[in-house]
Protein backbone atom coordinates (compact mmCIF):
# COMPACT_ATOMS: atom_id res chain seq x y z
CA UNK A 1 0.00 0.00 0.00
CA UNK A 2 2.74 2.40 0.93
CA UNK A 3 3.75 3.09 -2.62
CA UNK A 4 0.27 3.31 -4.01
CA UNK A 5 -1.23 6.11 -2.01
CA UNK A 6 -1.44 8.69 -4.74
CA UNK A 7 -2.18 6.54 -7.72
CA UNK A 8 -4.94 4.07 -8.01
CA UNK A 9 -7.64 5.72 -6.01
CA UNK A 10 -8.14 8.34 -8.70
CA UNK A 11 -9.82 5.80 -10.96
CA UNK A 12 -8.32 7.28 -14.07
CA UNK A 13 -6.86 4.92 -16.59
CA UNK A 14 -3.53 3.87 -15.26
CA UNK A 15 -1.46 1.60 -17.33
CA UNK A 16 1.59 1.39 -15.13
CA UNK A 17 2.42 -2.16 -14.21
CA UNK A 18 2.43 -3.15 -10.60
CA UNK A 19 4.69 -5.52 -8.83
CA UNK A 20 2.82 -8.72 -8.28
CA UNK A 21 3.33 -8.42 -4.57
CA UNK A 22 1.62 -5.04 -4.37
CA UNK A 23 -2.07 -4.91 -5.07
CA UNK A 24 -3.46 -1.53 -5.91
CA UNK A 25 -6.50 -0.23 -4.02
CA UNK A 26 -8.60 -1.00 -7.08
CA UNK A 27 -7.34 -4.59 -7.22
CA UNK A 28 -8.11 -4.99 -3.54
CA UNK A 29 -11.52 -3.45 -3.93
CA UNK A 30 -12.47 -5.72 -6.81
CA UNK A 31 -10.99 -8.74 -5.07
CA UNK A 32 -13.22 -8.06 -2.07
CA UNK A 33 -16.28 -7.80 -4.28
CA UNK A 34 -15.45 -11.00 -6.13
CA UNK A 35 -14.69 -12.86 -2.92
CA UNK A 36 -17.96 -12.04 -1.28
CA UNK A 37 -20.02 -12.67 -4.43
CA UNK A 38 -18.41 -16.08 -4.82
CA UNK A 39 -18.58 -16.91 -1.12
CA UNK A 40 -22.28 -16.13 -1.00
CA UNK A 41 -22.90 -18.27 -4.04
CA UNK A 42 -24.06 -15.59 -6.44
CA UNK A 43 -21.18 -16.14 -8.83
CA UNK A 44 -19.74 -19.42 -10.02
CA UNK A 45 -15.98 -18.94 -10.46
CA UNK A 46 -16.06 -21.19 -13.50
CA UNK A 47 -18.62 -18.91 -15.16
CA UNK A 48 -16.52 -15.89 -14.35
CA UNK A 49 -13.42 -17.43 -15.88
CA UNK A 50 -15.31 -18.55 -18.95
CA UNK A 51 -16.85 -15.11 -19.49
CA UNK A 52 -13.49 -13.39 -19.28
CA UNK A 53 -11.83 -15.95 -21.52
CA UNK A 54 -14.58 -15.65 -24.10
CA UNK A 55 -14.45 -11.90 -24.42
CA UNK A 56 -10.71 -11.62 -24.03
CA UNK A 57 -9.72 -14.23 -26.55
CA UNK A 58 -12.63 -15.54 -28.61
CA UNK A 59 -14.76 -12.75 -29.93
CA UNK A 60 -13.16 -10.12 -32.08
CA UNK A 61 -13.33 -8.26 -35.38
CA UNK A 62 -12.34 -11.35 -37.37
CA UNK A 63 -16.00 -12.28 -37.16
CA UNK A 64 -17.12 -9.04 -38.73
CA UNK A 65 -14.37 -9.27 -41.33
CA UNK A 66 -15.70 -12.63 -42.51
CA UNK A 67 -19.15 -11.13 -42.87
CA UNK A 68 -17.82 -8.20 -44.89
CA UNK A 69 -15.73 -10.41 -47.18
CA UNK A 70 -18.70 -12.65 -47.86
CA UNK A 71 -20.84 -9.64 -48.70
CA UNK A 72 -18.17 -8.45 -51.13
CA UNK A 73 -18.14 -11.72 -53.05
CA UNK A 74 -21.76 -12.82 -52.76
CA UNK A 75 -24.40 -10.37 -53.95
CA UNK A 76 -27.25 -12.47 -52.61
CA UNK A 77 -25.67 -12.62 -49.17
CA UNK A 78 -25.07 -8.89 -49.30
CA UNK A 79 -28.74 -8.31 -50.08
CA UNK A 80 -29.81 -10.56 -47.20
CA UNK A 81 -27.32 -8.85 -44.88
CA UNK A 82 -28.60 -5.38 -45.64
CA UNK A 83 -32.22 -6.46 -45.46
CA UNK A 84 -31.97 -8.33 -42.12
CA UNK A 85 -28.48 -8.62 -40.77
CA UNK A 86 -29.02 -10.87 -37.76
CA UNK A 87 -30.05 -14.07 -39.61
CA UNK A 88 -27.61 -13.36 -42.42
CA UNK A 89 -24.72 -13.23 -39.95
CA UNK A 90 -25.99 -16.41 -38.34
CA UNK A 91 -25.36 -18.14 -41.65
CA UNK A 92 -21.67 -17.57 -40.89
CA UNK A 93 -22.04 -18.49 -37.24
CA UNK A 94 -21.76 -14.89 -36.10
CA UNK A 95 -24.11 -13.65 -33.41
CA UNK A 96 -25.05 -13.85 -29.74
CA UNK A 97 -24.94 -11.55 -26.73
CA UNK A 98 -24.69 -7.95 -27.91
CA UNK A 99 -25.56 -8.86 -31.47
CA UNK A 100 -29.17 -9.96 -31.10
CA UNK A 101 -30.45 -7.17 -33.36
CA UNK A 102 -27.85 -6.35 -35.97
CA UNK A 103 -28.16 -3.63 -38.57
CA UNK A 104 -25.62 -3.36 -41.36
CA UNK A 105 -25.19 -0.03 -43.10
CA UNK A 106 -23.34 0.03 -46.40
CA UNK A 107 -20.92 2.75 -47.40
CA UNK A 108 -21.36 4.16 -50.87
CA UNK A 109 -19.65 6.80 -52.94
CA UNK A 110 -22.43 9.12 -51.80
CA UNK A 111 -22.53 8.32 -48.09
CA UNK A 112 -20.13 7.15 -45.42
CA UNK A 113 -21.43 5.61 -42.20
CA UNK A 114 -20.06 6.10 -38.70
CA UNK A 115 -21.24 4.33 -35.54
CA UNK A 116 -21.21 5.72 -32.01
CA UNK A 117 -23.01 5.27 -28.72
CA UNK A 118 -23.25 8.71 -27.11
CA UNK A 119 -25.02 7.43 -23.99
CA UNK A 120 -22.82 4.49 -23.06
CA UNK A 121 -20.82 1.99 -25.08
CA UNK A 122 -23.20 -0.07 -27.21
CA UNK A 123 -21.16 -2.09 -29.67
CA UNK A 124 -21.71 -5.35 -31.59
CA UNK A 125 -19.64 -7.63 -29.36
CA UNK A 126 -19.98 -10.90 -31.28
CA UNK A 127 -19.14 -9.14 -34.53
CA UNK A 128 -16.32 -6.82 -33.44
CA UNK A 129 -15.34 -7.98 -29.94
CA UNK A 130 -15.18 -5.64 -26.99
CA UNK A 131 -14.84 -2.00 -27.99
CA UNK A 132 -11.56 -0.13 -27.72
CA UNK A 133 -11.21 2.45 -24.96
CA UNK A 134 -11.56 5.40 -27.35
CA UNK A 135 -14.98 4.18 -28.47
CA UNK A 136 -16.21 4.26 -24.86
CA UNK A 137 -14.56 7.57 -23.96
CA UNK A 138 -15.98 11.10 -23.82
CA UNK A 139 -14.02 12.57 -26.75
CA UNK A 140 -15.45 10.13 -29.28
CA UNK A 141 -18.91 9.91 -27.76
CA UNK A 142 -19.29 13.69 -27.58
CA UNK A 143 -17.83 14.61 -30.95
CA UNK A 144 -18.88 11.88 -33.39
CA UNK A 145 -22.39 13.28 -33.64
CA UNK A 146 -21.49 16.97 -33.92
CA UNK A 147 -18.24 17.01 -35.88
CA UNK A 148 -17.76 13.63 -37.54
CA UNK A 149 -15.48 14.97 -40.27
CA UNK A 150 -13.11 16.37 -37.68
CA UNK A 151 -13.14 13.06 -35.83
CA UNK A 152 -12.50 11.13 -39.03
CA UNK A 153 -9.59 13.43 -39.84
CA UNK A 154 -8.00 12.47 -36.51
CA UNK A 155 -8.24 8.86 -37.64
CA UNK A 156 -6.51 9.80 -40.87
CA UNK A 157 -9.67 9.50 -42.94
CA UNK A 158 -10.46 12.39 -45.25
CA UNK A 159 -13.58 11.84 -47.27
CA UNK A 160 -14.45 13.63 -50.49
CA UNK A 161 -16.36 16.80 -49.67
CA UNK A 162 -19.38 15.54 -51.59
CA UNK A 163 -19.56 12.25 -49.72
CA UNK A 164 -22.17 12.68 -47.02
CA UNK A 165 -21.69 11.33 -43.53
CA UNK A 166 -24.36 9.42 -41.70
CA UNK A 167 -23.79 8.95 -37.99
CA UNK A 168 -25.65 6.14 -36.22
CA UNK A 169 -26.11 6.76 -32.52
CA UNK A 170 -26.81 3.36 -30.90
CA UNK A 171 -29.48 4.51 -28.49
CA UNK A 172 -31.42 1.21 -28.31
CA UNK A 173 -30.63 -2.50 -28.58
CA UNK A 174 -29.93 -2.38 -32.29
CA UNK A 175 -26.25 -2.82 -33.01
CA UNK A 176 -24.58 -1.44 -36.11
CA UNK A 177 -21.85 -2.71 -38.37
CA UNK A 178 -20.58 -0.67 -41.30
CA UNK A 179 -20.14 -2.52 -44.56
CA UNK A 180 -17.22 -0.71 -46.18
CA UNK A 181 -16.78 -0.45 -49.92
CA UNK A 182 -14.63 -3.13 -51.48
CA UNK A 183 -11.24 -1.65 -52.29
CA UNK A 184 -10.22 -1.34 -55.91
CA UNK A 185 -7.76 -3.84 -57.26
CA UNK A 186 -9.08 -6.78 -55.27
CA UNK A 187 -10.77 -8.66 -58.10
CA UNK A 188 -8.29 -11.51 -57.85
CA UNK A 189 -8.51 -11.99 -54.09
CA UNK A 190 -10.39 -14.84 -52.48
CA UNK A 191 -12.69 -14.42 -49.53
CA UNK A 192 -10.01 -15.07 -46.90
CA UNK A 193 -7.63 -12.60 -48.50
CA UNK A 194 -10.42 -10.03 -48.67
CA UNK A 195 -11.25 -10.55 -45.00
CA UNK A 196 -7.64 -9.72 -44.17
CA UNK A 197 -8.18 -6.24 -45.65
CA UNK A 198 -11.13 -5.50 -43.38
CA UNK A 199 -10.03 -3.54 -40.35
CA UNK A 200 -11.99 -3.19 -37.15
CA UNK A 201 -12.20 0.57 -37.68
CA UNK A 202 -13.58 0.12 -41.18
CA UNK A 203 -16.57 -1.66 -39.62
CA UNK A 204 -17.12 1.19 -37.13
CA UNK A 205 -16.68 3.80 -39.84
CA UNK A 206 -13.58 5.42 -38.37
CA UNK A 207 -11.41 3.74 -40.97
CA UNK A 208 -11.38 2.30 -44.45
CA UNK A 209 -10.30 -1.19 -45.53
CA UNK A 210 -6.66 -1.75 -46.26
CA UNK A 211 -5.53 -1.51 -49.84
CA UNK A 212 -4.41 -4.82 -51.31
CA UNK A 213 -0.68 -5.47 -51.17
CA UNK A 214 1.47 -5.20 -54.31
CA UNK A 215 1.24 -8.96 -54.84
CA UNK A 216 -2.54 -8.95 -55.00
Amino acid sequence: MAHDHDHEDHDHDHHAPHHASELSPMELRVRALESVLVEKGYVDPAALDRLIETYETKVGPHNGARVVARAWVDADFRARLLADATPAMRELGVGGRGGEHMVVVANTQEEHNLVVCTLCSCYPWPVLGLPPVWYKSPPYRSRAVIEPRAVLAEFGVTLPADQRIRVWDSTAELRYMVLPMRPAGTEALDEAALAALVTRDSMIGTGLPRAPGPSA
Partner: protein
Amino acid sequence: MNGGQDLGGMHGFGPVAPEADEPRFHAAWEKRVFGLAMAMGLSGTWNLDASRSAREALPPGEYLTSSYYAIWLKALESQVQAHGLVTPEELATGRGFVPAAPVKRVLRGEEVDPLFARGFPSDRPVPDPARFTVGDRVRARIVNPVGHTRLPRYVRGRTGRIEAVHGGFVFPDTNAQFAGEAPQWLYTVRFAARDLWGDQAEAGHAVSVNAFESYLEPAEPESAA
Protein backbone atom coordinates in the same frame (compact mmCIF):
# COMPACT_ATOMS: atom_id res chain seq x y z
CA MET B 1 -31.41 11.44 -16.66
CA ASN B 2 -29.48 14.48 -17.71
CA GLY B 3 -26.31 13.06 -16.26
CA GLY B 4 -22.65 12.77 -17.10
CA GLN B 5 -23.38 9.98 -19.57
CA ASP B 6 -25.30 12.14 -22.03
CA LEU B 7 -22.30 13.27 -24.02
CA GLY B 8 -23.56 13.87 -27.56
CA GLY B 9 -22.53 17.34 -28.74
CA MET B 10 -20.45 18.30 -25.73
CA HIS B 11 -17.17 20.13 -26.14
CA GLY B 12 -13.92 20.19 -24.28
CA PHE B 13 -12.88 16.55 -23.96
CA GLY B 14 -9.98 16.88 -26.35
CA PRO B 15 -8.96 14.64 -29.24
CA VAL B 16 -9.95 11.02 -29.67
CA ALA B 17 -6.98 9.03 -28.45
CA PRO B 18 -6.60 5.57 -29.97
CA GLU B 19 -3.99 3.39 -28.29
CA ALA B 20 -1.27 1.74 -30.31
CA ASP B 21 -1.68 -1.68 -28.75
CA GLU B 22 -5.33 -1.49 -27.68
CA PRO B 23 -5.33 -3.94 -24.81
CA ARG B 24 -8.83 -5.15 -24.10
CA PHE B 25 -8.22 -4.70 -20.41
CA HIS B 26 -5.75 -2.35 -18.78
CA ALA B 27 -5.44 -4.02 -15.41
CA ALA B 28 -6.26 -7.43 -14.00
CA TRP B 29 -9.12 -5.96 -11.97
CA GLU B 30 -10.87 -4.72 -15.12
CA LYS B 31 -11.33 -8.29 -16.36
CA ARG B 32 -12.79 -9.33 -13.05
CA VAL B 33 -15.22 -6.40 -13.05
CA PHE B 34 -16.29 -7.23 -16.56
CA GLY B 35 -16.90 -10.86 -15.69
CA LEU B 36 -18.63 -10.08 -12.41
CA ALA B 37 -20.97 -7.60 -14.06
CA MET B 38 -21.82 -10.13 -16.77
CA ALA B 39 -22.40 -12.94 -14.29
CA MET B 40 -24.45 -10.85 -11.89
CA GLY B 41 -26.43 -9.48 -14.82
CA LEU B 42 -27.70 -13.01 -15.34
CA SER B 43 -28.73 -13.49 -11.73
CA GLY B 44 -32.14 -12.08 -12.59
CA THR B 45 -31.87 -9.48 -9.84
CA TRP B 46 -31.75 -6.57 -12.24
CA ASN B 47 -31.66 -6.02 -15.98
CA LEU B 48 -29.38 -4.34 -18.50
CA ASP B 49 -31.34 -1.10 -18.40
CA ALA B 50 -31.06 -0.98 -14.62
CA SER B 51 -27.32 -1.49 -14.90
CA ARG B 52 -27.00 1.38 -17.35
CA SER B 53 -29.09 3.47 -15.01
CA ALA B 54 -26.83 2.62 -12.06
CA ARG B 55 -23.77 3.72 -14.06
CA GLU B 56 -25.40 6.98 -15.10
CA ALA B 57 -26.34 7.69 -11.51
CA LEU B 58 -22.75 8.45 -10.60
CA PRO B 59 -22.38 12.19 -10.02
CA PRO B 60 -21.38 13.71 -13.37
CA GLY B 61 -17.93 14.82 -12.19
CA GLU B 62 -17.20 11.34 -10.93
CA TYR B 63 -18.59 9.70 -14.05
CA LEU B 64 -16.39 11.85 -16.27
CA THR B 65 -13.22 11.25 -14.27
CA SER B 66 -13.68 7.52 -13.76
CA SER B 67 -12.32 4.98 -16.19
CA TYR B 68 -14.83 2.80 -17.99
CA TYR B 69 -14.52 -0.26 -15.78
CA ALA B 70 -14.32 1.89 -12.66
CA ILE B 71 -17.80 3.11 -13.59
CA TRP B 72 -18.92 -0.51 -13.98
CA LEU B 73 -17.41 -1.40 -10.62
CA LYS B 74 -19.03 1.46 -8.74
CA ALA B 75 -22.41 0.68 -10.30
CA LEU B 76 -22.10 -3.02 -9.48
CA GLU B 77 -21.15 -2.27 -5.87
CA SER B 78 -24.14 0.00 -5.65
CA GLN B 79 -26.48 -2.59 -7.18
CA VAL B 80 -25.49 -5.52 -5.00
CA GLN B 81 -26.05 -3.37 -1.93
CA ALA B 82 -29.28 -1.78 -3.13
CA HIS B 83 -30.73 -5.23 -3.83
CA GLY B 84 -29.69 -6.61 -0.46
CA LEU B 85 -27.25 -9.18 -1.84
CA VAL B 86 -24.21 -7.81 -0.04
CA THR B 87 -23.85 -5.58 3.01
CA PRO B 88 -21.46 -2.63 3.22
CA GLU B 89 -19.39 -4.59 5.76
CA GLU B 90 -19.15 -7.55 3.42
CA LEU B 91 -18.06 -5.30 0.60
CA ALA B 92 -15.45 -3.67 2.80
CA THR B 93 -13.99 -6.96 4.02
CA GLY B 94 -14.65 -9.32 1.13
CA ARG B 95 -16.21 -11.82 3.53
CA GLY B 96 -19.80 -12.93 3.94
CA PHE B 97 -21.41 -12.18 7.28
CA VAL B 98 -25.10 -12.61 6.57
CA PRO B 99 -26.84 -15.41 4.66
CA ALA B 100 -27.11 -15.06 0.91
CA ALA B 101 -30.34 -13.59 -0.40
CA PRO B 102 -32.13 -15.73 -2.95
CA VAL B 103 -31.38 -14.93 -6.59
CA LYS B 104 -33.31 -16.21 -9.58
CA ARG B 105 -30.33 -17.93 -11.15
CA VAL B 106 -26.66 -18.55 -10.71
CA LEU B 107 -24.90 -18.72 -14.05
CA ARG B 108 -22.84 -21.89 -14.23
CA GLY B 109 -19.61 -22.20 -16.15
CA GLU B 110 -21.05 -24.66 -18.64
CA GLU B 111 -23.98 -22.36 -19.38
CA VAL B 112 -21.85 -19.46 -20.57
CA ASP B 113 -21.16 -20.65 -24.09
CA PRO B 114 -24.68 -21.67 -25.09
CA LEU B 115 -26.36 -18.71 -23.39
CA PHE B 116 -24.04 -16.08 -24.76
CA ALA B 117 -23.99 -17.64 -28.21
CA ARG B 118 -27.78 -17.43 -28.28
CA GLY B 119 -27.99 -13.95 -26.78
CA PHE B 120 -30.81 -12.17 -25.06
CA PRO B 121 -33.16 -10.59 -27.57
CA SER B 122 -35.07 -7.48 -26.55
CA ASP B 123 -37.77 -7.55 -29.18
CA ARG B 124 -41.28 -8.12 -27.87
CA PRO B 125 -44.70 -8.15 -29.48
CA VAL B 126 -46.65 -4.88 -29.30
CA PRO B 127 -50.38 -5.31 -29.80
CA ASP B 128 -51.16 -1.82 -31.07
CA PRO B 129 -50.23 -0.73 -34.56
CA ALA B 130 -47.28 1.58 -35.01
CA ARG B 131 -48.22 5.25 -34.79
CA PHE B 132 -45.62 6.36 -37.32
CA THR B 133 -44.52 5.10 -40.68
CA VAL B 134 -41.42 5.56 -42.79
CA GLY B 135 -41.22 9.09 -44.09
CA ASP B 136 -43.21 10.72 -41.30
CA ARG B 137 -41.81 13.92 -39.91
CA VAL B 138 -41.55 13.68 -36.14
CA ARG B 139 -40.28 15.77 -33.29
CA ALA B 140 -38.41 14.25 -30.37
CA ARG B 141 -40.36 15.23 -27.30
CA ILE B 142 -39.02 17.68 -24.78
CA VAL B 143 -38.62 15.47 -21.76
CA ASN B 144 -36.18 15.57 -18.87
CA PRO B 145 -36.82 12.46 -16.80
CA VAL B 146 -34.86 12.10 -13.60
CA GLY B 147 -34.70 8.37 -14.27
CA HIS B 148 -33.13 6.40 -17.09
CA THR B 149 -33.97 7.29 -20.66
CA ARG B 150 -32.45 6.60 -24.04
CA LEU B 151 -33.46 9.83 -25.71
CA PRO B 152 -30.32 11.98 -25.73
CA ARG B 153 -30.63 15.65 -24.92
CA TYR B 154 -29.24 16.74 -28.25
CA VAL B 155 -32.30 15.55 -30.18
CA ARG B 156 -35.03 16.70 -27.77
CA GLY B 157 -37.30 19.21 -29.40
CA ARG B 158 -35.64 18.64 -32.77
CA THR B 159 -37.40 17.51 -35.92
CA GLY B 160 -36.44 14.53 -38.04
CA ARG B 161 -37.90 11.85 -40.26
CA ILE B 162 -38.83 8.24 -39.59
CA GLU B 163 -36.48 6.06 -41.57
CA ALA B 164 -37.24 2.59 -40.26
CA VAL B 165 -39.80 0.85 -38.07
CA HIS B 166 -38.17 -1.99 -36.16
CA GLY B 167 -41.02 -3.63 -34.31
CA GLY B 168 -41.61 -3.78 -30.57
CA PHE B 169 -38.79 -3.62 -28.04
CA VAL B 170 -38.45 -3.51 -24.27
CA PHE B 171 -38.87 0.09 -23.11
CA PRO B 172 -35.73 0.99 -21.14
CA ASP B 173 -37.27 3.85 -19.15
CA THR B 174 -39.70 1.57 -17.32
CA ASN B 175 -37.57 -1.55 -17.34
CA ALA B 176 -34.69 0.25 -15.62
CA GLN B 177 -37.03 1.06 -12.76
CA PHE B 178 -38.44 -2.48 -12.57
CA ALA B 179 -41.77 -1.05 -13.72
CA GLY B 180 -42.19 -3.57 -16.52
CA GLU B 181 -40.86 -4.17 -20.01
CA ALA B 182 -43.80 -2.21 -21.44
CA PRO B 183 -42.64 -2.81 -25.01
CA GLN B 184 -43.02 -0.04 -27.56
CA TRP B 185 -42.47 0.41 -31.25
CA LEU B 186 -38.89 1.33 -31.98
CA TYR B 187 -37.96 3.61 -34.87
CA THR B 188 -34.90 4.96 -36.55
CA VAL B 189 -35.19 8.73 -36.86
CA ARG B 190 -32.87 10.66 -39.13
CA PHE B 191 -32.03 14.25 -38.27
CA ALA B 192 -30.23 16.62 -40.62
CA ALA B 193 -27.18 17.98 -38.81
CA ARG B 194 -28.39 21.54 -39.34
CA ASP B 195 -31.57 20.75 -37.46
CA LEU B 196 -29.55 19.43 -34.54
CA TRP B 197 -26.60 21.79 -34.44
CA GLY B 198 -27.58 24.89 -36.37
CA ASP B 199 -26.15 26.68 -39.34
CA GLN B 200 -22.55 25.97 -38.36
CA ALA B 201 -23.03 22.21 -38.67
CA GLU B 202 -20.59 20.38 -40.89
CA ALA B 203 -21.97 20.10 -44.41
CA GLY B 204 -23.57 16.92 -45.70
CA HIS B 205 -24.08 15.28 -42.38
CA ALA B 206 -27.01 13.55 -40.73
CA VAL B 207 -27.46 11.69 -37.48
CA SER B 208 -29.83 8.82 -36.78
CA VAL B 209 -30.98 7.67 -33.39
CA ASN B 210 -33.20 4.78 -32.37
CA ALA B 211 -36.23 6.23 -30.67
CA PHE B 212 -39.13 4.59 -28.86
CA GLU B 213 -42.62 5.64 -29.86
CA SER B 214 -43.34 7.60 -26.68
CA TYR B 215 -40.24 9.71 -27.33
CA LEU B 216 -41.81 11.06 -30.51
CA GLU B 217 -44.68 13.27 -31.58
CA PRO B 218 -45.81 14.33 -35.04
CA ALA B 219 -43.76 17.30 -36.20
CA GLU B 220 -46.87 19.15 -37.24
CA PRO B 221 -49.52 19.42 -34.56
CA GLU B 222 -52.21 16.82 -35.10
CA SER B 223 -55.46 17.94 -36.61
CA ALA B 224 -57.53 18.24 -33.42
CA ALA B 225 -55.95 21.48 -32.27
